[in-house]
């Protein structure tokens, strides 16, 4: 459907106005406030949707004081390939509707009915039309001040149904419809009986659980009581048996105790007798052991005496006698060795005296040689000393030193430099004779040349032909010459002072002086090496040595050769050492034998002492026969005492021995323990009796059985409730999952249609629609932001985009008009420019009417038609 023309008459102050040549796409109606934009939009609304019948307040409000006729609106539009003209007049008189279509004209109600049919709305009545009667149109019509509303609030049930039918047809999936919604509600309600939204159990389940738990607790208590009763009864039976058994044990133990006491008395008496007899036997045994000891001691001493006497004899014979012989032999050997040693010592002493004489003679000879050597050295040193003094004199005669030579060299150099300078300032003259001639009277042949240098003015006469005046240098020539003369005189003065002819002579003298100095140094060095401490010291040393030599006396002409006598002395000393060693060996052997002999003699003496001691002891003891008789008597008495003790011990053992004594004590304690146990058991029996009686009066078994039955019933009810709850939950969950999946598929075309526009303003963001096509908010891949939380401007933009997207779905290829009265008032210019692109694009399918008082905001929208309202409502005459 597209509107092609709108005409207003007498409309709320607008006398006449025509919107002509309306663009099938984008139309912009601009004007300041109060210029009639909203009144034009309202007129179109009334022309399409309100009935001309009736005089309701909102229709009365269409009139104004100034107007000359009834409010009237005419609209031309196209739909379904046909052109229609609707005109409606609102007022007290003459109100009517007329619809002209292809080949027909309908009046009043018929016109309203047909128009409603064409627009897909409920036929209007005389009252003000409501949104829910207008199908999809509230979605397409954004009235003033309502651009920020959520778009789904303008979505009527009819519009939703149409959209869902369209979506179902697009997706190829049938929606569940009202039946499905109803079933879903019932399933959710049923699940809600059992579970909260967060999945927690509600009262039917918790009460069933509580009841089961309560009965279980009661049953547990009852069972505990029953078990307690059974345990008490069992304990009572056992206690009673124990008391009977303990009574019997008391009687038996009392009897046993009496008998044990008698036996204990008898055993004690026997024990005392045994102790007495054992004492007597011990005394006899002591005597026996003493006699046996005496006998043994005597025998041992006798044996020891024999052994000691034998040892003494053996030692004398086998040890002492051989050692005495050996001692005699060694004494002789020691004497022989001593004699040999003394002889060797004498020989060696003689050789040593001869050696001493040889050494002294050699010493004298050595002194003589050294004195000769020292005297020669002294003579040589004195010669060197004399040479040194001579060279020193020669050196002293040469007066040129290094400083003088350097001065002379410097002056010679300066002089040469001054002379060269003077020469440079001279004039060189060359005369080449072309024929024979005379110069200053001297002949110069043809072809010969004469070279002259003039350092001072001169003249030259060439034959009688010419006189040449030569003036060399210039003004400085004189001073240069004076400098050269001064230097020359200074040089000569120094040379004369040192008795030298020239610099070369000075150089030669200095070289000679240097050579002499070196020679003197060498001589001094040699002299120092020869006698470092000086010639005087050398003379003193010579005199000392001559004195010592004198003390050595005269030469000994009979003294042997030192080497020969030294060799002989060494041989004799070795012989003496060998003799001494031989003597010492024999002497040591003798000492060892003497020592051993002493040991053996001491041993014999010790054996003899022991024998004397043993003989004395044996004399003090009784004879052996007497001791043997006493030992036989003591043994008989001891055996008799032992037999008596054994007899008494046999009687003691028959009575039970130690056990008989302790039995009485033990049984006494046993009896006491039994009586204590018995008292405890009797008290326990009294307590258990009371407990059993108390519990038996409570009908424990009946109560437990009753509770068991109740528990079975409660568990059955619990199971039934849980089963119902599980069924309700399963059904609701399944329906929700299926509905969500279905909704996702069904809503896909709608969200796609919206998304393509949304991306222009909000790249990467999608709109979230619920199953009822309500806008929930914006969502990204990770989060969703609810619409209510968005800013006013964003809500306005989202609302317009959603309306455009859904309108495109509803329009299909036919197209639909959309009206935005004062839209995007909260949107900034950047977003408005982005909205321009969207509106321009959707204008391919939708006919857009934008009413705005901000022309600058929509300059770039690219409207197909622009209407600018004048400052006052337009009044164009109708032809």
């Amino acid at each position, binding site marked *: 459907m597209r509107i092609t023309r709108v005409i207003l008459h007498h409309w709320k102050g607008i006398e006449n106005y025509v919107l002509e040549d309306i663009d099938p796409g984008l139309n912009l109606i601009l004007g300041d406030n109060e210029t009639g934009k909203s009144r034009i939009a309202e007129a179109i609304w009334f022309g399409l949707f309100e009935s001309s019948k009736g005089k309701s307040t909102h229709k009365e409000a269409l009139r104004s004081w100034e107007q000359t006729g009834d409010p009237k609106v005419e609209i031309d539009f196209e739909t379904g390939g046909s052109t229609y003209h609707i005109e409606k007049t609102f007022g007290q008189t003459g109100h009517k509707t007329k619809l002209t279509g292809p080949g027909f004209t309908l009046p009043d109600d018929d016109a309203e009915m047909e128009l409603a049919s064409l627009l897909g709305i409920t036929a209007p009545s005389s009252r003000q039309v409501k949104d829910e009667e207008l199908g999809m149109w509230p979605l397409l019509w954004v009235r003033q001040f309502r651009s920020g509303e959520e778009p789904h609030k303008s979505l009527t049930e009819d519009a939703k149904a149409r959209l869902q039918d369209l979506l179902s047809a697009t997706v190829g*999936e*049938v*929606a*569940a*419809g009202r*039946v*499905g919604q*109803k*079933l*879903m509600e*019932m*399933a959710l309600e*049923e699940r809600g009986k059992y579970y909260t939204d967060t999945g927690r159990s509600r009262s039917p389940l918790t009460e069933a659980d509580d009841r089961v738990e309560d009965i279980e607790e009661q049953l547990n208590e009852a069972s505990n009581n029953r078990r307690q009763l059974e345990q008490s009864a069992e304990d009572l039976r056992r206690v009673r048996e124990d008391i009977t058994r303990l009574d019997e044990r008391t009687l038996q133990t009392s009897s046993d105790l009496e008998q044990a006491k008698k036996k204990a008395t008898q055993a004690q008496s026997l024990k005392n007798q045994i102790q007495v007899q054992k004492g007597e036997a011990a005394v006899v045994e002591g005597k026996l052991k003493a006699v046996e000891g005496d006998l043994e001691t005597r025998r041992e001493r006798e044996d020891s005496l024999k052994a000691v006497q034998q040892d003494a004899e053996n030692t004398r014979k086998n040890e002492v006698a051989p050692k005495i012989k050996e001692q005699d032999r060694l004494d002789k050997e020691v004497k022989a060795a001593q004699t040999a040693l003394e002889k060797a010592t004498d020989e060696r002493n003689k050789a040593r005296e001869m050696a001493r004489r040889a050494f002294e003679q050699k010493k004298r000879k050595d002194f003589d040689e050294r004195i000769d050597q020292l005297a020669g050295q002294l003579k040589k040193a004195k010669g060197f000393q004399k040479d040194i003094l001579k060279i020193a004199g020669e050196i002293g005669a040469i007066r040129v030193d290094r400083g003088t030579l350097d001065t002379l060299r410097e002056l010679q150099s300066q002089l040469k430099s001054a002379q060269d300078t003077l020469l440079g300032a001279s004039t060189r003259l060359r005369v080449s004779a072309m024929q024979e001639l005379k110069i200053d009277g001297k002949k110069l042949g043809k072809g010969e040349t004469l070279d002259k240098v003039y350092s001072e003015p001169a003249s030259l006469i060439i034959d009688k032909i010419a006189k040449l005046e030569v003036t060399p240098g210039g003004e400085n020539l004189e001073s240069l010459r004076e400098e050269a003369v001064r230097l020359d005189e200074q040089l000569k003065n120094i040379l004369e002072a040192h008795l030298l002819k020239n610099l070369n002579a000075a150089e030669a003298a200095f070289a000679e002086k240097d050579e002499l100095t070196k020679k003197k140094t060498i001589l001094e060095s040699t002299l120092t090496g020869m006698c470092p401490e000086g010639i005087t010291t050398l003379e003193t040393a010579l005199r000392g040595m001559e004195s010592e030599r004198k003390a050595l006396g005269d030469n000994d002409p009979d003294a042997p050769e030192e080497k020969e006598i030294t060799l002989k002395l060494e041989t004799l000393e070795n012989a003496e050492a060998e003799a001494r060693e031989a003597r010492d060996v024999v002497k040591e052997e003798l000492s060892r034998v003497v020592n051993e002999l002493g040991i053996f003699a001491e041993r014999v003496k010790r054996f003899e002492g022991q024998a004397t001691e043993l003989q004395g002891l044996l004399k003090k003891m009784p004879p052996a026969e007497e001791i043997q008789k006493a030992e036989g008597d003591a043994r008989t008495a001891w055996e008799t005492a032992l037999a008596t003790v054994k007899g008494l011990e046999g009687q003691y053992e028959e009575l039970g021995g130690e056990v008989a004594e302790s039995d009485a004590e033990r049984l006494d304690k046993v009896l006491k323990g039994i009586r204590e146990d018995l008292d405890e058991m009797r008290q326990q029996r009294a307590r258990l009796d009371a407990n059993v009686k108390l519990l038996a009066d409570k009908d424990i078994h009946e109560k437990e059985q009753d509770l068991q039955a109740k528990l079975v*019933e409660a568990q*059955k009810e619990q*199971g039934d409730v849980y*089963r*119902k709850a*599980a*069924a*309700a939950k*399963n*059904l609701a969950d*399944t*329906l929700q*999952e*299926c*509905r969500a*999946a*279905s*909704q996702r598929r069904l809503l896909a075309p709608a969200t796609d249609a919206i998304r393509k526009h949304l991306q222009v303003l909000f790249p990467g963001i999608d709109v979230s629609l619920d199953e009822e096509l309500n806008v929930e908010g914006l969502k990204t891949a990770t989060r969703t932001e609810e619409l209510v939380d968005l800013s006013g401007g964003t809500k306005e933009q989202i609302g317009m985009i959603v309306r455009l997207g859904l309108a495109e779905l509803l329009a299909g290829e036919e197209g639909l008009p959309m009206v935005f009265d004062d839209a995007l008032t909260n949107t900034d210019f950047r977003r408005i420019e982005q909205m321009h692109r969207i509106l321009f694009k959707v204008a391919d399918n939708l006919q857009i009417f934008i009413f705005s008082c901000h022309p600058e905001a929509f300059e770039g929208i690219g409207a197909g038609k622009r209407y600018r309202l004048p400052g006052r409502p337009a009044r164009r005459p109708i032809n």
Partner: protein
Amino acid sequence: MPKVEQVPVGRTKWIDREVVFNHDEEVDDLGEWFEYLDEKSWTLVQLTMSGHLSLKARSQLDRLQEDNQSRLLCLRIKDDRVAAAPTEEDLQYLSLEGFVGTAVDLLRQDESQESQDALRLLYRFHREAGGES
């Protein structure tokens, strides 16, 4: 021989009844039995049921139980041995459009008791919602 005769001595009446369902019509019979009980507010009934029923009949039985719970002094029911299997007629009745139809298919494919109970519940809701049978 002494003759023993049953003489009521108390006002409350205890009834223990077992029912085996082989046909859906037997639910109607049970309904009639409940109808003809005397002094319902003084009667205690323990009803043990077993057998096979269609969803339609099972739904009818559920309603029958719920109605008589409040009318009798006590109604103790053991119906866990009553199997409810959807018949062709039931399935035809549940061949709903859209996501409900998808949910019915899912529940039918799951043989667990939970899903079968859910399917039965859906059947009952559909009837209560006025769905055509």
